[in-house]
């Protein structure tokens, strides 16, 4: 068939050339679609870094381009985690920053294009999505053919599940990590298929890049060994597999250890033990294979049974023993929470408090992948049908990731690629059958010829049949094709809609509508951060919940106590304690940590639900984990166990610094009537407004979203700040003249 087709010519041009040309044009279009759909955020808002983590990456990138790589590697950051500091150079994945740094240098020094580093950072994710499209094409091509590859490429380009992490401005590790994930998988499949050391090395190289870019590299570290392990169990050991895996493992592990943050993890942490174990197992299997070829099969069976039991027992005992001895680090909390969704909530509230670590709601699957989600099982089914080695890979990948994506919202990101690949395979199989209209005519004419030559009797009958054979398949094919064309069309609409409406908000800037329906921008965050930048001393320390640490560091350029790199739970709990306890306890924490300003996010006026009062329970839980005697979650609920902020709120709640800072002077906005909190739909009593003693209001943004308070100095004449504030507040009132002077009741002087 193939040789016949190569000779086909259209308008004198060889059809292969036309195919190539078409493929290139399709690729350019797909990449164009992928990139342009990610630019909604820039068009709707501006070229701005999004959300939280990207602000740190952006700040680190700026540090990298303004310092040497050596300084970046040994960067000790004294602007965060005051006063502990952070060994930033050794605790980050430098791949993203180095990538942008290289692009910046190349453009600047080689091409003389002095582009602002911010624009490079903003547009890096869309640019890499173009590369993801290409690697997805190659991966799928290995699974089926280039038709499926092209379908997978377009799916990958516009699937919202991937777009959610790669819109312009979403300058996060995942932006380049997905590209590297697909590239690594492609090279692995290639290496495994042809047993090439070259492709094995490429796999290791891309694996190294992946390790340098994202903590999710552990997924590859476990998925490839699992693939090999399953192949071994299926009795599909080959020398090609041995070559590919050994090359990848040896080179990849050595390379990954060069990243300071990873260090010796590949040989000391449980997350990496599977790869090491499979490497060992593969050596044994290779040896067994050698023995098998030399000894009779009966002896070999006993040899195999004995040695296998022995090896497995030894391996398991070794793993447990070394973990018990502390030589191998036990699984991390994030890992446990993958298996037991309730684990984090009980043991590590800090992990559970992150919204992207919550279990996924089922509509999210449809929302993020559209119609692909129901093509996905069909694709996996086709994999089972053929079940080549690479199909096993897709099966394992899809099973694992379906589970993970169900457990954690953020892992939807790793599921999306395999959904795209499997769906493309299913759809391409379908199109192979139903889009091939030529087949209808060619096969039927063949049949006619056969009919004519073999049976002369039923010429008339077959003539009738022949007409039916042409029309019926044509109709069915047309119906199926049109249906799927409609689905695809609808899918594109869905993707565009989701991208433009759900995933393109920078979350630093909020968009809203005025009462008359006209769009408006809510820019409180930047207003407040800019206020901090311009009005506070450069070494001022700002205490805020950790969510805002990166943003304060990036936009306000002020020292923070905690940030989104949640490496020190106790320090975060300290901040949580200062928010959830009374003012005098908080003041001690402020003084001990040299805090100058306290920042809270409050959405009650505007109805912005992601505010600190809604996160408050997590602050309480996290600090309760460290100080169970001082902070008790129960005390913040009403007697009936409700989380209330109105007049029914518990006394502990009303005394907490967080409550006071959020609702300080809130009811004044409503002319002395009870102020409605539009997030919690409760009325804040105007009769008993919160009073501040150790803090004073410094700044409140236009819509009350960001409120900044200044920590008062110690009283000059040695009173406690409660008495001092009470005294200062008397200023306006006339002095009450006492008839008789009463003897004060004083404690015994120490």
């Amino acid at each position: 068939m193939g040789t016949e087709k190569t000779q086909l010519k259209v308008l004198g041009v060889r059809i292969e050339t036309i195919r190539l040309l078409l493929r290139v044009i399709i690729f350019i279009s797909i990449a164009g679609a992928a990139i342009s759909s990610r630019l909604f955020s820039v068009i709707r808002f501006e070229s701005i870094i999004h959300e939280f983590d990207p602000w740190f990456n952006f700040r680190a990138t700026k540090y990298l381009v303004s310092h040497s790589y050596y300084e970046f590697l040994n960067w000790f950051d004294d602007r965060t985690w005051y006063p502990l500091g952070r060994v930033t150079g050794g605790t980050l994945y430098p791949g993203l920053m180095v990538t942008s740094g290289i692009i910046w240098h190349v453009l600047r020094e080689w091409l003389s294009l002095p582009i602002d580093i911010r624009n490079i950072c903003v547009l890096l994710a869309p640019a890499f999505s173009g590369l993801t499209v290409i690697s997805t094409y190659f991966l799928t091509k290995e699974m089926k053919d280039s038709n499926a590859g092209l379908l997978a490429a377009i799916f990958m380009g516009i699937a919202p599940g991937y777009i959610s992490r790669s819109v312009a401005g979403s300058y996060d590790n995942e932006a380049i990590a997905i590209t590297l994930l697909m590239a690594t998988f492609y090279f692995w499949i290639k290496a495994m298929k042809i047993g090439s050391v070259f492709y094995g090395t490429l796999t290791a190289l891309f694996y190294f890049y992946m390790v340098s870019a994202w903590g999710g590299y552990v997924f590859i570290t476990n998925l490839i060994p699992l693939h090999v392990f399953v192949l071994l169990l299926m009795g599909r050991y080959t020398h090609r597999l041995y070559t590919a895996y050994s090359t990848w493992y040896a080179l990849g592990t050595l390379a990954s250890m060069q990243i300071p943050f990873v260090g010796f993890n590949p040989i000391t942490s449980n997350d990496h033990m599977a790869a090491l174990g499979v490497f060992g197992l593969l050596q044994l299997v290779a040896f067994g294979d050698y023995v098998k070829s030399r000894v009779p099969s009966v002896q070999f069976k006993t040899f195999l049974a004995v040695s296998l039991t022995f090896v497995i027992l030894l391996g398991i005992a070794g793993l447990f023993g070394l973990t018990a001895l502390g030589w191998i680090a036990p699984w991390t909390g994030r890992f446990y929470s993958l298996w037991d969704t309730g684990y984090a909530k009980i043991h590590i509230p800090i992990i559970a408090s992150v919204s992207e670590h919550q279990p996924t709601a089922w509509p999210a699957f449809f929302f993020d992948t559209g119609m692909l989600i129901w093509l996905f099982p069909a694709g996996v089914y086709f994999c089972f049908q053929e079940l080549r080695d690479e199909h096993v890979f897709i099966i394992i990948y899809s099973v694992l990731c379906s589970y993970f994506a169900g457990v954690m919202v953020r892992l939807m990101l790793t599921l999306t690629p395999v959904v795209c690949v499997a769906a493309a395979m299913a759809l391409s199989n379908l199109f192979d059958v139903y889009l091939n209209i030529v087949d209808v005519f060619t096969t039927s004419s063949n049949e006619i010829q056969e009919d004519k030559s073999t049976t002369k009797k039923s010429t008339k009958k077959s003539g009738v049949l022949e007409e039916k054979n042409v029309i019926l398949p044509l109709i069915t094919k047309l119906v199926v094709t049109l249906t799927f064309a409609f689905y695809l069309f609808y899918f594109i609409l869905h993707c565009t809609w989701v991208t433009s409406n759900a995933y393109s908000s920078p979350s630093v800037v909020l968009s809203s509508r005025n009462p008359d329906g006209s769009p408006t921008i809510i820019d409180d965050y930047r207003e407040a951060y800019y206020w901090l930048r311009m009005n506070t001393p450069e070494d001022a320390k700002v205490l805020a919940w950790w969510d805002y640490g990166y943003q304060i560091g990036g936009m306000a350029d002020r020292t923070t106590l905690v940030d989104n790199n949640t490496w020190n739970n106790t320090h975060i709990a300290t901040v949580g304690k200062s928010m959830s306890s009374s003012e005098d306890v908080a003041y001690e924490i402020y003084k001990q940590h040299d805090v100058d300003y306290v920042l809270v996010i409050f959405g009650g006026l505007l109805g912005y639900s992601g505010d600190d009062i809604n996160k408050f329970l997590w602050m309480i839980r996290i600090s309760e984990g460290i100080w169970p005697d001082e902070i008790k979650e129960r005390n913040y609920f009403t007697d009936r166990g409700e989380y209330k902020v109105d007049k029914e709120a518990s006394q502990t709640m009303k005394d907490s610094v967080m409550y006071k800072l959020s609702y300080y002077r809130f009811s004044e906005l409503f002319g002395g009537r009870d102020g409605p909190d539009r997030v919690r739909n409760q009325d804040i009593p105007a009769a008993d407004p919160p009073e501040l003693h150790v803090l004073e209001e410094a700044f409140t943004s236009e819509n009350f979203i960001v409120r900044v308070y200044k920590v008062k100095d110690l009283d000059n004449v040695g009173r406690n700040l409660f008495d001092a504030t009470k005294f200062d507040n008397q200023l306006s009132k006339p002095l009450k003249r006492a008839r008789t002077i009463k003897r004060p009741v004083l404690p015994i002087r120490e």
Partner: protein
Amino acid sequence: MLANRLINGAIFLFLSVVTAVVSQVDLVTENALVIYDSKFHNLDDSNSLSPSIAQLINNLEGQYKVKYHTYDDLDIKLFFEDSPRYDHVVILPSSKKAVLSKESIDQHKLLQLINEKTNILVVGSSQAILPESIRGFLNQLGIYPSPKNFQYTDHFNYDGNFVTLNNENLVQGNRVLSTIPNLNYKGSAALISNNELLFPIIQGSATSFTAKSGIEKITEDTTWTYGGQGFLAIGFQALNNARVTWVGSESLVTDELTNWTFQKRDVLKLRFTEHVNNAEPSKPNPTLYRIKDQAIYTVGVSELIDGKWVPYEVKSPEDQLQLSFKMLDPYQRLNLEPLGPVAATEGSEDLDAFAYFVNFTVPDHHGMFTFELDYKRVGLTYLENKQVVTVRHLANDEFKRSWDISNSWLYAASAALVIVAWFLFVVNYIYVSKTDLAKKNV
């Protein structure tokens, strides 16, 4: 070794004074205000004044531009705009419950004076009324003087008219008054709160009490203090070093007390502070240290004596200066060692400050550390200095090289051995054993 460091320290000291603030004693005459009641003190007739008040007026006139106001004056203005008009204020007893000019002298204004570094001397009396605003102000500091007609009494040291005070009543280590030889006292007493900035100067004896005079029966309502809880003279120094003294009777007002209150003595000044990395002595006050660096911290302290800054040398071990090197908790808390008199200004021949230093190893812990000098001694000006520095971890090339670690030799050797063995194996496999294989196959 130590001598070497000492010399190093001394050298950096002289280099450092660039950063020190040059300051001369202010030559502008300071302003003082005396608020009095003409019923008690006729300041126009110096003969009618008691010797201690006459001496006080004399003392003030000799040093300051003094202004006099009675409680009835309407034009008393403590502030011009927001800055105080006076550096020192003396408040003498009053016969009236209120000050006529309520807006200008109320408790908030007086407290504001303290916050603006004005010193206040309040003289009490058992016959006089403390105006409401001044009482309220003293109460804020934690001084609760007894009301009118309450008199300090001690029948064991009583001569019929006066209570005799002797040095046993003097609180040890108060620095304000050194001696009160057999002083005859007739006046009030005060209770004090637990305010850490307050310190008693004269304490009532154990057999004393303060009660309403002329009343036979002592009850809860007619007494103010019992025994040692009554104080006759109290000193106070705010965090900004403004000083307040309260005395129960004008007989306690002495030059010694006035000079302390009005910052003529026991005034210290931090002339310079400097820290330096021993490895880089030419760069004073670096912001970045590395763990386990050697740091040298030096300070120069002067004391004001007779209007001149002279070196302040710590005499008693209790008064030693201390440095804390802290991050949340102090990792180091060290006594500063005396280095000797130095010139606080660069190029000056005048040895007007006393230098102290300490040499220590930065802890093996990275983070933001604070060099903290916190010197608070009763009666002396507070000295405070905080400098935050970053202590960084070892950089990737600052660890020991692998060949310097003897443990690594074993691993290096085994790695080399594997490479050699593998090479030999390959050579053997390809070239040597080939012939055998060929033979067997044949």
